[in-house]
C-alpha cells in the first residue's frame, strides 16, 4: 500500500489496514464509551462524578451485550440441533 496516497478522513482505514474488517466488533467499544460519557454528562449534576458513572455504564452495557450474544448463540445452536 502506498502510504502517501492515503488521505485520512477521505479514504477508508481499510486501505491502510486491510485486516481491520476482521476486528470490526472491537470498534463498538469506543462507540459505547463515548455514548456513556455524553449521556452521563447530560445527567450528572456534579462533573467529578462523570468518569466513574460513565465507566460503570460502559461495563454494564458490555456485560449485557455479552449475555445477549451468548443467549442468541444458544438459541441458534438449539435451532440447528432441533430443526
Amino acid at each position, binding site marked *: 500500500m502506498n502510504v502517501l496516497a492515503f488521505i485520512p478522513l477521505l479514504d477508508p482505514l481499510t*486501505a491502510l489496514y486491510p485486516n481491520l474488517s476482521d476486528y470490526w466488533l472491537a470498534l463498538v467499544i469506543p462507540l459505547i464509551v*463515548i455514548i456513556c460519557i*455524553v449521556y452521563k454528562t447530560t445527567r450528572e449534576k456534579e462533573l467529578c462524578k462523570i468518569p466513574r458513572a460513565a465507566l460503570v455504564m460502559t461495563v454494564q452495557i458490555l456485560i449485557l451485550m455479552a449475555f445477549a450474544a451468548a443467549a442468541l448463540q444458544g438459541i441458534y445452536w438449539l435451532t440447528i440441533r432441533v430443526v
Partner: protein
Amino acid sequence: MVPEHPAHSHSTSESPGAAGYLALVFAWIVPGLGHLLIGQRARGIIFLLTINGLFAGGLLIGGIRAINPPEQPIWTYTQLLAGAPMIIASKLQKQAEKNFELLQDEYRSNRPEEWDTSPKKIDERKAYAKDFIAQHPLFSYHPKVQDIGSVYCGIAGMLNLLVMFDVLLRITGTTREEPAAKSKPNPSAPVAPPSPPTPPAAGGAA
C-alpha cells in the same frame, strides 16, 4: 452569553427567549457550542470533543463514503443531526462520489478479461485490483468497516440531538424527573407533624 436557569431547581418550564433559541441552533451547528453559550463550559468542552471526535472517528474508519451511505437513508438523517461537520462532509462526499465513478470506469476499462475464469487470469485480476487500490485508496471497500464508519457518524448526530435537548432543558429551567426519586420518599425532606383530627363539621348529623 445566554443566562442559564438553575436546572434541577423547579419543574415549571418557561420560554427561553430569542437568545435561548439561538443557543439551541448553535448547539446543532457545532456540537457542544450550545452549552458553551449558556455558560456550561466544562460540559460544552466534553460534548465538543466527544461528539466531534466520534464523527471524525467515523470518517477515519469508513472514509468519506461513510457519509450518505447508499440505500441506508436512515443513517443520512441521523448524520445530519451532527450539524456543520456533516454539512462539510456531505459536500466532500458528493465530490468524492464523482471521483469514485471515474475510478470505477478506469478500473473496468483496464481490468483483465472477466469472462476468462482460468486460475492464471483470476490471479491476474486479483493482482490488478490490489495494485489499483494501492494507487487509489478510495476504491477500497470493506462493508463491515464502512458500516461501522456510518454508524459512528450517525450516533454522533443522535448524541447531538440528546445534547440539544439538554440545552433546551437548561435554558427553560425544566427539571428532569428522576426515576429513583419517584419511587422513594426524600429522607432529607422535613417531616410534617401529625395533624390533629379534624372536628366534625358544625351542623352535621349528630
